């Protein structure tokens, strides 16, 4: 059995380079948990970090939290700035708040759960390959261009406590892989170019239900109501929505 080894870091007024050095030092010292207090705008926290470790972050982390990260579970008690989970490989980012634009940008594996809202272009260019399949779950709302140029993975938008539209224009513009699943019915005018409505199949339904349960588990919510609802499933109309747009073939 692995023994708990909790290491605390005070991020007050330190630069992200120093902060990341302290995180890596803690990992080298076989920490199982890292608690970082007083985070305020430091970018790239846990970026490129390979470790099976739990990181609790208190404050507002700066852009690109967990970029290229492989393994850690980050719990953020506050909002995130732009692009948390950028090209993240494996691990989890659980945000007890909201996140900025381009959340889960190019994510290639792992999971991200956002309790409240994400900004514009959430899940832009998410991708999947073989066993790697990233997931972004958003509790309340997402702004325009959700899943823009999406190439794989799953985006799940729940709209908890929100009246439609809790999403913006251009959903899935240029999508060529993956699925966007949104609670309730959606008018055509919100859909982007290259998006097709699909039926919910059993395996997707199972996946959606287990993600909803996990989301509710993190934020102490009752999953029952969410599980009963209808969901709109969106996917790519083709694998190359813009073939011939910029070049002749």
């Amino acid at each position, binding site marked *: 059995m692995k023994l708990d080894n909790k290491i605390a870091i005070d991020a007050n007024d330190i630069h992200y380079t120093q902060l990341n050095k302290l995180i890596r030092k803690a990992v080298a010292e076989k920490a199982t948990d890292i608690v970082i207090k007083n985070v305020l705008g430091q970018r790239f926290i846990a970026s490129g970090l390979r470790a099976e470790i739990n990181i609790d972050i208190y404050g507002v982390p*700066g852009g690109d939290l967990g970029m290229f990260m492989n393994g850690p579970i980050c719990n953020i008690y506050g909002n995130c*700035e732009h692009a948390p989970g950028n090209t993240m490989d494996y691990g989890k980012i659980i945000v007890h708040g909201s996140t*900025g634009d381009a959340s889960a940008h190019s994510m290639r594996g792992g999971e991200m759960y956002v309790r409240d809202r994400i900004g514009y*272009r959430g899940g832009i260019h998410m991708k999947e390959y073989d066993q790697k399949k990233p997931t972004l779950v958003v509790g309340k709302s997402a702004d325009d261009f959700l899943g823009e140029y999406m190439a794989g993975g799953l985006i799940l938008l729940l709209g908890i406590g929100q009246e439609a539209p809790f999403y913006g224009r251009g959903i899935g513009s240029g999508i060529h892989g993956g699925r966007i699943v949104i609670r309730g019915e959606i008018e055509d005018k919100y859909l982007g170019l290259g998006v097709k409505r699909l039926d919910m199949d059993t395996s997707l339904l199972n996946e959606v239900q287990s993600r909803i349960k996990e989301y509710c588990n993190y934020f102490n919510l009752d999953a029952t109501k969410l599980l009963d609802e209808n969901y709109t499933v969106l996917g790519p109309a083709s694998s190359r929505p813009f073939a011939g747009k910029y070049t002749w073939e």
Partner: protein
Amino acid sequence: MCGIFSVIDRNMTRMDGSSIKAALSSMDERGSGEGAGYVAYGIYPDFPDCYALHIFFDNIVDHKSKVDELLSKWGVIIHQEEIPTYEQPSLKRQHIPWRYFFKPYKDLMVGSLTPEEDIIIKTVMDINSGIDGALVFSSGKNMGVFKAAGWPEDVANFYRIEDYRGYIWLAHNRYPTNTPGWWGGAHPFNLLNWSVVHNGEITSYGTNRQYVESNGYKCTMHTDTEVVAYLFDYLGRRHKLTEELIVKALAPPFWDEIDSMPLSKSELNRAIRLIYGPALMNGPFGIVVAQSDGIVGFTDRIKLRPLVVGDDGTKLYISSEEAAIRRVDPNIGEIYMPKAGEPVIGRVVK
């Protein structure tokens, strides 16, 4: 990428520049050390009725007498002095910042409804396009721009920004991309009481520039942002549009959105797009514009640049990052990201 920070105290309580410096410096990564600047309103209570002209001189010997001469023709210089600066090891002095407190003779501009302002605009344009080695970068009343090529903290220390107290502050950290970093190209850009900070680029610059130049403005700063100041002056001061309508002209709704609006709303939006088409700005931008009675922040229509708003009832903050707002006010109550193209307005309570 650039960093923006702005704040208005709606009760006009003045804040010194130290917290503004801290907020902007916390976003150093958004810049490249080639331009930073600050503007504050309410800083010259001893000269409330004078236009405070801030000028970069290349040197005092060759160029200043021409400016003195021009100003003395169009009005009276009440007071003038070098703007106090303090050498910083990592900031190279390229110009001498100077300030005039100036009152124009308004009866010299006949046929104008706003003779004072028109004299100031003419003087600013004449100096900037006609007198080598002199550049007016601030020309409003009881306000002033302080900028240079350097990092936010160095520029702030160079001018000792903490010695100024204002009820509105805009601050900007520049990452020059399309045009060189130089003192005049740092933000904020200013004309009369309008000041602009801008993150992004205006790809419609050619069209916008033609439009403002055909209406008497001259673009002399070698960068896109100055057209925003002139567009606000033209639409706001001369056409008397409200900030809401100016933002509708600069970042209008899409045609399909206009088509689905109720008739009265769609007619207004259609009219604005048709009349002010050349004022429409394309490209990625997050912008904050200030005047002496308020600030307005907005982004481009598809939100290609960030903007975060904090509001505690008295103070309204508009910034590129939430962390910068929390650095100044850790317990700020309301924090949100406005929708693309939606103006966020903070006005002083009179």
